[in-house]
C-alpha cells in the first residue's frame, strides 16, 4: 500500500527545471532509497514531500490525504506526520541535546516530556550526553541526536537527506545499522536520499534511480543490480 503518492510533479528553481512530470509511489513500512547523482532531483522530492517546497504543478498525497495540490500547500509540514533529517542535521546549536529533542514536544504540549526524551536517549545510548551542546558531540552522536529529535514526535514517515555524507566508513556502517532497525522499532516508512549505491544496497527495500529529474528505474536491490537501463548500469559502475 502506498503511503506517499507524487502525481505529475514538475518543479524548477529560477526557471531551471529540476523535476519534469514525475510520478512516484512510496510504499508503507518500507525503506525507499532515492538514488542519483548531483542535480538529479532527489533532495527536491524529499523537500516537496515535507512541504518545504511547492511544486509548479502536480499533486502529492500522504496517507491518502491531499497535502499539496495545484501550487498550493494544503497541509503544513508539521501536519504531515513526518520527520526530516537534513544533510547538515540542523541541530540547533544553542540548545543542549535534551532541549533539541524536547523542543518539538513542548510545542505540542505533550505530558511527561522528560521521561519521553530520556527514553529516546536511552534507546540510542545518548543519556550521558543530554546536557551537552551539539558542538561537543562526535559526528555519529550528532546523527543519532538528529534521528532522536525526529522520532520523539512519533512520525509515520521519516525523510532522510544524505544524513551520512560527512561520516567515515566505520561510523557510516554503525549508523546504517541503526537506520535499518528503525522501520521495525518505530513502525516507520523511510525515504532515504543518497548518491552512494553501496549505501542504498545496504539498507533499501526499494530503490528509485533518478537522473535529470526523471525516474530511470525502480525496484528492489536485486532488480536494480540486474537492470538493463543504460544510465543505471553506468551509475552503478562507479
Amino acid at each position, binding site marked *: 500500500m502506498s503511503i506517499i503518492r507524487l502525481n505529475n510533479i514538475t518543479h524548477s528553481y529560477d526557471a531551471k527545471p529540476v523535476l519534469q512530470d514525475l510520478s512516484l509511489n512510496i510504499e508503507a513500512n518500507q525503506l525507499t532509497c532515492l538514488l542519483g547523482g548531483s542535480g538529479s532531483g532527489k533532495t527536491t522530492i524529499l523537500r516537496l514531500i*515535507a512541504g*518545504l517546497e511547492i511544486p509548479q504543478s502536480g499533486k502529492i498525497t500522504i496517507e491518502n490525504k491531499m497535502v499539496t495540490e495545484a501550487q498550493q500547500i494544503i497541509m503544513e509540514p*508539521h*501536519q504531515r506526520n513526518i520527520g526530516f533529517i537534513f544533510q*547538515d542535521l540542523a541541530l540547533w546549536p*544553542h540548545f543542549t541535546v535534551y532541549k533539541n529533542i524536547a*523542543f*518539538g514536544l513542548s510545542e505540542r504540549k505533550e505530558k511527561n516530556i522528560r521521561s519521553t526524551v530520556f527514553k529516546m536517549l536511552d534507546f540510542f545510548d545518548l543519556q550521558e550526553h543530554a546536557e551537552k551542546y551539539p558542538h561537543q558531540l562526535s559526528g555519529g552522536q550528532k546523527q543519532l541526536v538528529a534521528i532522536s*529529535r525526529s522520532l520523539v514526535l512519533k512520525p509515520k514517515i521519516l525523510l532522510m537527506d544524505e544524513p551520512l555524507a560527512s561520516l567515515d566508513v566505520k561510523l557510516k556502517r554503525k549508523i546504517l545499522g541503526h537506520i535499518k532497525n528503525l522501520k521495525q522499532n518505530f513502525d516507520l516508512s523511510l525515504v532515504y536520499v543518497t548518491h552512494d549505491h553501496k549505501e542504498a544496497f545496504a539498507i533499501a527495500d526499494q530503490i528509485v534511480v533518478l537522473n535529470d529529474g526523471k525516474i530511470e528505474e525502480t525496484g528492489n536491490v536485486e532488480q536494480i543490480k540486474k537492470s538493463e537501463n543504460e544510465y543505471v548500469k553506468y551509475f552503478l559502475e562507479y
Partner: protein
Amino acid sequence: MSLFYRIVYVLFVFLIVFPLVYTLGAALFSDGSLNDHLTLLDKDTFVLLAKSCLIALSIALLSTIFGTVLGFLLYKTNVRLRNFFKIAILIPLFISPYILAVAWKDFFYLFFNNTGFISSYLGVILVLTSIFTPLSMIIIGSALSNINAQLEETGFVITNFHKVIFKITLPLIKPALMSSFVLVFIFSISEFSVPAFFGVKVFTTEIFTQFSAFYNHSLAILQSALLIFICIFLLFVERKHIANAPFLSVSAKGTSNKLYRLKNLKIVSQVFLFSWFSISVILPFVILFIQSFKNGIGKFIQAFELLIPTFGNSIGLAFFAALIIVIIGFVASFPIWNNTETKMGKSFTWILLIVFAVPSTIFGISLIKFYNHPMLDFIYSSYAIILIGYIGKFSFISAKLIGNAIKQIPASLDEAAQIEGITFFKRQRKILIPLIMPTLFVAFIISFIFSFGELGTTIMLYPPGTEIMPIKVFTIMANAPQSLTSSMTLIVFSVTLLIISSLYFIMKPFIIKL
C-alpha cells in the same frame, strides 16, 4: 509578522523617505519653474562643489591606499599583535569626527602655537583620512581574508611573490577596493563637523550657512540636491558590491586564508603599524588629556558641569534610536532566512541604503522643512524629530549587519523547527534571535555610538532649548578657551567608552557563545 513588517515599512517610508522626497520635489518644482531655480546655482557653487569633490577624492584615495596596506598587514601576514591592532586601529571610526578635529587643533596649538596648517583643506584631508582609513581597512581586510588560499598557492607554484600579489590577490579584491573608495568618498563629501570646526568652507558647510544663517532655503536645497545626486550616482554604480557588503559582518564563514610570513619587512611593518596606532589613536587622546589638565582641573570641572544636563537626554535619545534601529534592521533582514524575501523586502534594503547615502545636514533640512507644520508640531518641537533623523541615517548599517548574520545561519534550522510544528513567532524568538544575538548586540552598540556622536543631523534638527551633548560641545567650542573645548571632548570620549563597556557587561550573559 507580515502585517508587522508592512507597518514598519510604511512607517519608515512615511516618516523618513517621504519628507526627503517631498522637500526636494517641492523645492525644485513648485513656486516657479525648475529653470528659475537652477539660475540660483552660480559659478561659485560649482567651484566649491569641485573643491569638495577634490578633497573627498583625496581622502578616498589615501584611505584606500593606507587601508590596503593595513588590511594586508593585519589580515594576510603573521605580524605581531595583529589581533590587538585589528581592534585598536578601529577606534577613530567609532568616535565623533569633531573630537579628533579638536585633538589635532590642540596638537598644533600646543607644539607650534599656530593652527593655520590644520585649519585648511590639507588639515581636513589628513584628519578625515585618519578617521576613514580604518573603514577601508575592514572592507579590504575582510576581502583579503576571504580569498581562498589555494588560489594564491597555485600562483606561487608558477611565479614569484610580487606577481602573485599584483596579478592574483589585488585583482581578486578589486570590488572591495572600489567599495572602499566609493564609501569613503561619500562619507567625506558628506562630512560636516570637521570642516566646520576648522572653519574650512566646503559644500556641506555652505549648505548649512545658506540654510541657517542666510535662510536661503531654496539655494540650500538645490545645493543639497546636487550632493545627493553625486552620492546616489556613486552608490548606484557600486550598488552590487555595497548592497552585499561582506565587511558588515560580525563573523564570517571560515575560509582557508593564506597568511604570509614577513621576513625582511617584519620590523618595518611593525614600526608602521605601531606608528599608525600612535598617531591616529594614542596621540589625539594624550593631547586632549594634556590640554584639559595643563592649567589644573578647573576647566575640566567646568566642562563637566556644562555637560551634565546633556547626559540624560543624549544617552536616552541614542538608546531609543539604537533600539528602534535594531528592530528596523531585523525586520528588513529576517525574510532572508527562510527565503521569503519579496520585492517589498528588497526595496526596503534599497531605501535604507539611499537614505544612508544622503548627507546628514541635507537629511536634517528635509526633515525640518517637512515637519515644520502646525499639524506635525508635536514631532517638530520635540526629541522625536532627532530620533527620526538618527533612525533614517543608521538603519542601513544595522540592516546589513543583521542581514549578513542571518545569511550565515542555515535555513535548515528553521525548516527543522517548521516540521516540528513550532510557530513562526516561536521560531524567531527561540531559534533565530538567540543565534544572531551577538550581532544584534553589535548592531545596537554601533547604532548607539553613531547616534550618540552624530552632529550633522542633530545640529539641523535640535529643537530650541534642548540639551544634547554634541550640540553643546559644538556651540560652546566656537568661543570657549581651548582647554575647555578639550575637556568637553575628553568627557564625551570617556562617556562613550564607559557606555560601551557598561553595555557590554550588561549584555554579556545574554550573548550565547556558539
